[in-house]
């Protein structure tokens, strides 16, 4: 199978032409619940994307960018010391080693190249912690596009360093002061911008969620994660893993990994959601585990909402997972039973972050630490099995949080409370 064939491959777990995961009607997820004013733009994007999938020159150009600029394929690393502690063989897909430090570069390079193909000269994006914003600003600089990033005012204050990175890369960062002034409000504001700028602007959506075609389009650009990992695992171990694991906020890194294994029925698929202070408290973002079916940002999916359908504020120690919705394909994979989703608390994630740092010398993003924590739990249930974990990002950006959590930074006590 060539690289291009892999990109257009579809399975029963993927969306139909209207964006429905599952048979349309009751029980289906996704779709396109959007203002009519944006439908033409979404149709234009869909058409351009379909055309690019069938165009070998687009595929070749994107493959070259992802390889030479982003550094893919990322390696699959046999984490032997962590495996010893876990009681199962743990393989880490090292997306943290890609340019800008996370899998997100794959998505933005794909969408930015598509923007060029559509003849548009400006991109906009939303960002929570700033990772998608930094990736978007990077891709825009690389391809010579104007770039505007919407970021909740609360987040601009929490992530001043990422604001500076985006600005250094030439992007304009607009603080969003409406609603809860966080990621969901940044998405609202980016959609408002797009409504009045569609003729020259593309919206680089940051995750495999939102209205059709975004969930499927983003998947097509991140599915290299799973395609590479599947091949690498076969080369390294001679067989498929027993289970794959990833963290799920919006869910792009997870779907990128899972997609390659959906039709491998013997491979268990596990997503780990941000459990915050615990799902028995109001402070979490475990959308599939604790949310209910609704419509948010253009798709029918699981949503953290109150009795009237108002979106409820989410919480996670990891800003990249702090979102009250989830990609509709994950909702479908959960409802259909193909994948299972469980919450991992802030404390479990931070413990896993420290453990990976000390056993392997790898500091993961707190997002990715949720997947590591989940894999450690899974290893207890599946002793001796092989678990492939998506290490979706690196932890440099999270050192401020780690410093506070572990009480680090004082030279006479460098042991830190979390590593005892």
């Amino acid at each position: 199978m060539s690289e291009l064939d892999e990109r257009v491959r579809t399975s029963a777990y993927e969306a139909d032409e209207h964006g429905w995961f599952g048979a349309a009607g009751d029980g289906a997820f996704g779709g396109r619940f959007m203002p009519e004013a944006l439908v033409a733009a979404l149709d234009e994007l869909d058409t351009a994307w379909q055309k690019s999938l069938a165009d070998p020159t687009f595929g070749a150009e994107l493959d070259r960018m992802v390889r030479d600029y982003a550094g893919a394929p990322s390696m699959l690393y046999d984490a032997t010391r962590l495996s010893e502690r876990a009681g199962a063989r743990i393989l880490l897909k090292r997306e943290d080693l890609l340019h800008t430090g996370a899998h997100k570069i794959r998505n933005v390079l794909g969408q930015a190249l598509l923007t060029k193909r559509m003849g548009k000269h400006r991109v906009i994006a939303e960002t929570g912690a700033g990772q998608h914003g930094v990736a978007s600003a990077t891709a825009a600089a690389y391809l010579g596009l104007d770039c505007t990033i919407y970021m909740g005012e609360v987040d601009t204050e929490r992530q001043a360093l990422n604001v500076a990175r985006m600005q250094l890369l030439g992007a304009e960062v607009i603080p969003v002061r409406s609603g809860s002034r966080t990621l969901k409000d940044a998405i609202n504001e980016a959609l408002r911008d797009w409504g009045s700028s569609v003729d020259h602007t593309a919206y680089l959506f940051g995750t495999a969620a939102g209205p059709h075609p975004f969930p499927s389009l983003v998947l097509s650009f991140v599915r290299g994660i799973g395609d590479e990992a599947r091949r690498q695992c076969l080369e390294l171990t001679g067989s498929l893993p027993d289970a794959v694991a990833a963290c799920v906020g919006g869910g792009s890194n997870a779907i990128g990994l899972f997609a390659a294994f959906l039709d491998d029925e013997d491979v268990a698929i596990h997503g780990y959601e941000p459990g915050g202070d615990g799902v028995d408290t109001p402070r979490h973002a475990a959308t599939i585990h604790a949310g209910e079916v609704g419509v948010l940002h253009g798709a029918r999916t699981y949503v953290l909402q109150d009795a009237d359908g108002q979106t409820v504020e989410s919480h996670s120690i990891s800003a990249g997972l702090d979102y009250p919705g989830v990609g509709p394909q994950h909702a479908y994979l959960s409802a259909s039973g193909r994948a299972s989703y469980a919450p991992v608390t802030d404390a479990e994630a931070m413990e896993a972050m420290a453990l990976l740092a000390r056993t392997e010398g790898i500091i993961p993003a707190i997002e990715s630490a949720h997947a590591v924590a989940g894999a450690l739990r899974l290893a207890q249930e599946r002793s001796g099995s092989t678990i492939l974990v998506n290490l979706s990002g690196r932890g440099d950006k999270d050192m401020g949080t780690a410093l506070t959590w572990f009480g680090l930074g004082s030279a006479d006590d460098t042991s830190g409370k979390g590593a005892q």
Partner: protein
Amino acid sequence: MSVSTAFDAARAEDRAVLVGYLPSGFPDLPGGIDALRCMVDHGCDVIEVGLPYSDPVMDGPTIQAAAQQALEKGSRTTDVLRTVEAVAATGAPTVVMTYWNPVERYGVERFATDLASAGGAGLITPDLTPDFAPEWIAAADERDLDKVFLVAPSSTDERIAMTTAACRGFVYATAVMGVTGARTSTSDLAGPLVERTRRATDLPVGVGLGVSNGAQAAEVAAYADAVIVGSAFVRVLLDHADDPRAGRTALAALTEDLAEGVRARA
């Protein structure tokens, strides 16, 4: 009661319909009802009651602020229905404008039933297009409720045909690209959009594009069947937050100015 009664009456007078919007529960539940009744008393033909929602992607800062204020004061979906009941009792056809999730959450069938028994005329659905609305269309048809879907300057002729075929009551033309909000001059996108819409349907076409005074209303009334005003009414109440009496006077004056405008048809 369908909004068509208001359109028939206006047509007989050779004028456009004035549609006035406020979110429910703003500035508070009784205050919002009083304000909407004041708008009816001073010349609004149809009332649009907004259902305040946490993620209003189509609204500009003015309506966002009002909706957020209503939510912070605890506005509920049932309060919207209560507002509809109180306003519809005046005899003015009253529709609800709502983002989709609150209706799904309430239950589409249940919402349609309760809206009909409150005397509501129907729904305007800014983030629901007919191709994703089979459940609402069925529930509305069963109860003869108006289904007002939106058309936009970017809509293809094919989509305008599909959308207008699903509408009942009137068609809502969003005549600027982008969000709601009062603007200083009316849009040159509106006229051509109304013309394209008329080629597809005999239903009346209402235009919403940030009209804030009688002169602009007259301009729009020259080519549209209804002039829809939202942000300007909200702005008046926001500007007089500390003095409700003065706010009511200003609201009445704005309504009268707009009502004169839809009769002038510049």
